[in-house]
């Protein structure tokens, strides 16, 4: 929600510029980047900031692959640098092995993901398959709804990730093209406010000849499990931290985009639509139309997918008559999107017994139309009354192509 007082501070810029500007104000020490559509404008803007001398004490590495982008940041973070990269799709998949390594060594590396579909077939448009496929890598994942949030979430995620009790890497996931390439009025983060909000980075462990520690040792079955447990513990500690940092951000900047989740018209809602990312904008428009007709429809935005906010989700949807989950991804072989599967699983041992249905949609940038959302809502209303007919399905399949 934007405070009207901020209106006159707004400028119209491309989403990628707003994000690059935000990254700049966080004062990274090493930026490592590789071009890939639709992320490229972010690293191009950062390169220009560097060329213009606008980021002090920062090295920009034109690496030869995304794999080396993340690997070089692992080395940089080990020396105590604040690090940043941005990527998407094939680039993020190429990083996969190193993502586990970064989180296992507890380096709070931060990336922006301009979400894009994965090949094959090759496709440059938006869905969430790339970052959802990295959900088990031990990275914090926050999904944003609009450009302002993409920009505002960067200093927040640095603050969360660099907390001594957490020390996990994190990605801010924004929809490729839809947010990265859109020109929207935004407030560009003010340097003095970011300096107030985000403390400088001082990790406990560093590579330092004065105190020569060994990083990344070989763990046998005697110790490996404890490392995994501690990573999980850190994720659990990130849950309240994400909420707290969102509030601190609001105090300093006057903007709030939700903590772990964010409800819209949800208090009395009988039907709740859950989703992540920019599609929430369309969904909220449709919900407004239903509300105008007096129908109790609400929205639950899931902002944090990792850590997964089980309690907050259960609490938010417990009074609904039925819930529908929209996923821009699919785990092939389950016929379900990840948010749907995980929401279902967290309800199983709770007292909440409501019908839950899922749609997997918007693959490879397929337009998500208002009529389709209406169809989804009508289907969910039917499920609330008569029970579930189809648990999870693709939305808007073109039968004539099959």
């Amino acid at each position, binding site marked *: 929600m934007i405070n009207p007082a901020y209106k006159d501070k707004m400028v119209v810029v491309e989403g990628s510029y707003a994000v690059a500007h935000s990254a700049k104000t966080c004062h990274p020490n090493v930026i490592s980047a590789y071009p890939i559509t639709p992320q490229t404008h972010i690293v191009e803007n950062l390169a220009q900031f560097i060329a213009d001398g606008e980021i002090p004490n920062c090295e920009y590495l034109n690496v030869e692959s995304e794999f080396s982008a993340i690997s070089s940041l692992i080395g940089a973070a080990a020396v105590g640098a604040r690090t940043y990269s941005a990527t998407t799709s094939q680039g993020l998949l190429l990083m996969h092995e190193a993502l586990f390594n970064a989180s296992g060594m507890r380096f709070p590396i931060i990336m922006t993901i301009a979400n894009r579909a994965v090949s094959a077939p090759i496709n440059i448009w938006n869905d969430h398959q790339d970052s959802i496929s990295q959900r088990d890598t031990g990275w914090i994942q926050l999904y944003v709804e609009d450009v302002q949030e993409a920009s505002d979430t960067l200093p927040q995620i640095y603050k969360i990730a660099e907390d001594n009790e957490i*020390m996990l890497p994190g990605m801010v996931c924004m929809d490729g093209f839809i947010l990265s390439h859109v020109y929207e009025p935004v407030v560009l983060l003010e340097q003095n406010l970011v300096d107030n909000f985000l403390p400088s980075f001082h990790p406990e*462990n560093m590579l330092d000849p004065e105190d020569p*520690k*060994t*990083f990344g040792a070989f*763990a046998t079955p005697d110790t490996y499990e404890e490392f995994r447990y501690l990573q999980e513990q850190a994720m659990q500690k990130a849950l309240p931290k994400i909420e707290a940092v969102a509030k601190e951000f609001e105090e300093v900047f006057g903007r709030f985009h939700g903590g772990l989740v964010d409800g819209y018209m949800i208090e009395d809602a009988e039907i709740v639509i859950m989703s992540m990312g920019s599609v929430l904008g369309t969904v909220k428009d449709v919900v407004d139309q239903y509300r105008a007709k007096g129908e109790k429809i609400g929205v639950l935005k899931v902002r944090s997918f990792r850590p997964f906010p089980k309690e907050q989700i259960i609490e938010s949807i417990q009074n609904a008559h039925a819930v529908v989950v929209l996923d821009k991804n699919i785990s092939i072989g389950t016929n379900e999107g990840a948010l749907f599967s995980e929401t279902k699983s967290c309800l199983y041992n709770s007292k909440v017994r409501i019908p839950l249905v899922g749609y997997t949609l918007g693959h490879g940038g397929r337009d998500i139309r208002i009529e389709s959302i209406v169809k989804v809502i009508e289907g969910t209303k039917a499920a609330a009354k008569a029970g579930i007919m189809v648990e999870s399905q693709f939305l808007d399949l073109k039968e004539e192509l099959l």
Partner: protein
Amino acid sequence: MTTEASQDSTICPEISKNDHETIESKVTCCSVCKPGSTLKNKTGGWRNFRPVYNYEKCTKCGICEIVCPDMSVKPREDGFFEHDYDYCKGCGICANECPEDAIGMILEKK
């Protein structure tokens, strides 16, 4: 169970034999270890042959110290060297490389 670790240690079987009782420090958030701490692993137990000096032949050239892959040749005050049997694995390189033939290898009594 075949993990990559167990596969990888087929060549260095000693890895799996590591004395895990030596693990005292707690698992920290990242796998950070203290410098030089493998001194806890007394690898001398692997030895089949024991290197012994014949100081009468030794010219104190220092080669044996450089050519020990286990840092088990220690300089003495008097300029001679001695073996650190806590770690010496008995590879025989020091004996093989000594230009004066001043190191012998004798069968270790176990």
